[in-house]
């Protein structure tokens, strides 16, 4: 069964030289200069088509700035496509960054509720899974300490633990595996395997090709603005690696 579908999706961003340019003055000037009409747009996707079935684990790879995060944001509904249609069946949990919305002045326990509800969890559900979250995050004794006294590792662990307790139909993850020490990383991967077995649809953006090969059955390779390859994990990741080797000699030549 189909879970995610992108049909002829294009995404353009208006290019601002800096965020300070959001002033009326500039807006007026640019409408006066309308004659030239060379509005600066920056195209991230051009007519992208992609279908993901229920329970599929899809890795998304590509160089920096090829639109991997934008793809996840479009599917999550954080961004709207400029044209085309995006269909998503069921509930989505997008983890583009762990612990966004944490409040440093609140305690670990309070933050579990704050972050959990921001991710769309119900308070009663959080109450139920609170022991699991705390056990997973390994925070014994720091539960009622404000987050500002936590180490970065502790914050990330807490973020992952809350996010992993979510129960959506679709998980979108952006580099969330690149967290913590070796031990915690393995724990995260085990948790991910568990989610995979429970039949969730997962899209995973990562630069870690070994992890992608280990977890995903299918891989999508994004190049600037289009899907360069889409197929079995080993094939696509090998082709991706090969593209780096190809690129090198030409760099030497120039």
């Amino acid at each position, binding site marked *: 069964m189909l879970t995610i579908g992108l049909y002829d999706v294009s995404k353009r961003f208006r290019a601002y030289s800096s965020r300070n340019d*959001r002033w009326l003055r500039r*807006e007026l000037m640019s409408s006066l200069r309308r004659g030239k009409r060379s509005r600066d747009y920056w195209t991230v996707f051009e007519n992208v088509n992609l279908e993901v079935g229920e329970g599929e684990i899809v890795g998304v790879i590509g160089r920096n700035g090829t639109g991997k995060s934008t793809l996840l944001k479009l599917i999550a509904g954080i961004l709207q496509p400029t044209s085309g249609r995006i269909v998503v069946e069921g509930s989505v949990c997008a983890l583009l960054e762990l612990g*966004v919305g944490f409040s440093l002045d609140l305690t670990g326990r309070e933050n579990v509720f704050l972050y959990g509800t921001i991710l769309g969890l119900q308070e009663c559900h959080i109450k139920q899974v609170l022991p699991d979250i705390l056990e997973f995050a390994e925070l014994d004794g720091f539960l009622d300490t404000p987050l500002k006294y936590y180490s970065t590792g502790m914050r990330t662990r807490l973020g992952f633990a809350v996010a992993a307790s979510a129960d959506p139909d679709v998980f979108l993850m952006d580099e969330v595996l690149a967290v913590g020490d070796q031990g915690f990383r393995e724990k995260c991967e085990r948790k991910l395997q568990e989610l995979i077995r429970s039949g969730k649809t997962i899209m995973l953006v990562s630069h870690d090709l070994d992890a992608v090969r280990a977890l995903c059955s299918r891989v999508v390779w994004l190049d600037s603005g289009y899907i360069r390859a889409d197929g079995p994990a080993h094939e696509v990741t090998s082709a991706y690696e090969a593209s780096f080797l190809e690129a090198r000699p030409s760099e030497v030549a120039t």
Partner: protein
Amino acid sequence: MRAGVEELVRYRGMIRQMFVRDVKLRYERSIFGLAWTLLNPLAMLIVYTAFFSLVVRLGVPRYPVFLLSGLLAWNFVARGMTGVSAAIWHNGYLINRVRFPHESLVISGMLSLLTDFLIELAVLMLVLVALGATISAAIVFLPVAVVLLLMFGLGVALFFAVWMSLYRDTEYMLGIFSTAWLYMTPVFYPASLVPQKYLALYNLNPMVHLLSLFREPIYGGRFPASDTIVISTLISVGMLALGWSFFRRYSPQFAELI
């Protein structure tokens, strides 16, 4: 619109958690938190009372009560307009990484303001008693007045939250606008001082009617006139509908705009 309401109901936990966070940070974790909330209206009271009863003699009896019964309601709306409306702009990072109904940021902000407002109202009642005034039975109308004011303030905050995220100029314009609006509203002076020929124009200001909802029961000791109640209800519902529909139209673009 129904889908919007359903989504907000689903995210009521988030609204509550953000509200709880604000209140905790303001009151629980700061020793003087509550004191500041109380001190603020008291300080305003002293400054304005001194000015308007010693320098500009308006001849309004029980001026402190007259002033506060209008000023508190005015402050609620003004802070919603200039402060809470920045919630979208300030939470750009969150908006760009998580999908949630953006209204919840504005709603939780308004609820924190409401907490301050209710505490200030309670202080006002104490001042009333201390001044030896009798509190009339008309104060049972106040909950209705609070609900109407909250709806109006929320509509205003949602409306300007969009402008805040569209243009950085908005913040500065709102500073000027709120000052002008304050003096066109009978906060410091009674509406009866406005010349007859400008009165029709003056009454177009929605805050004129909303302030009466508070001033009549607290200062006048009587229920607001029925046409004031009807007009205020229409204004509040209308402003909320306008602000919210405007907000919903731009909400999907916030992640890009900010």
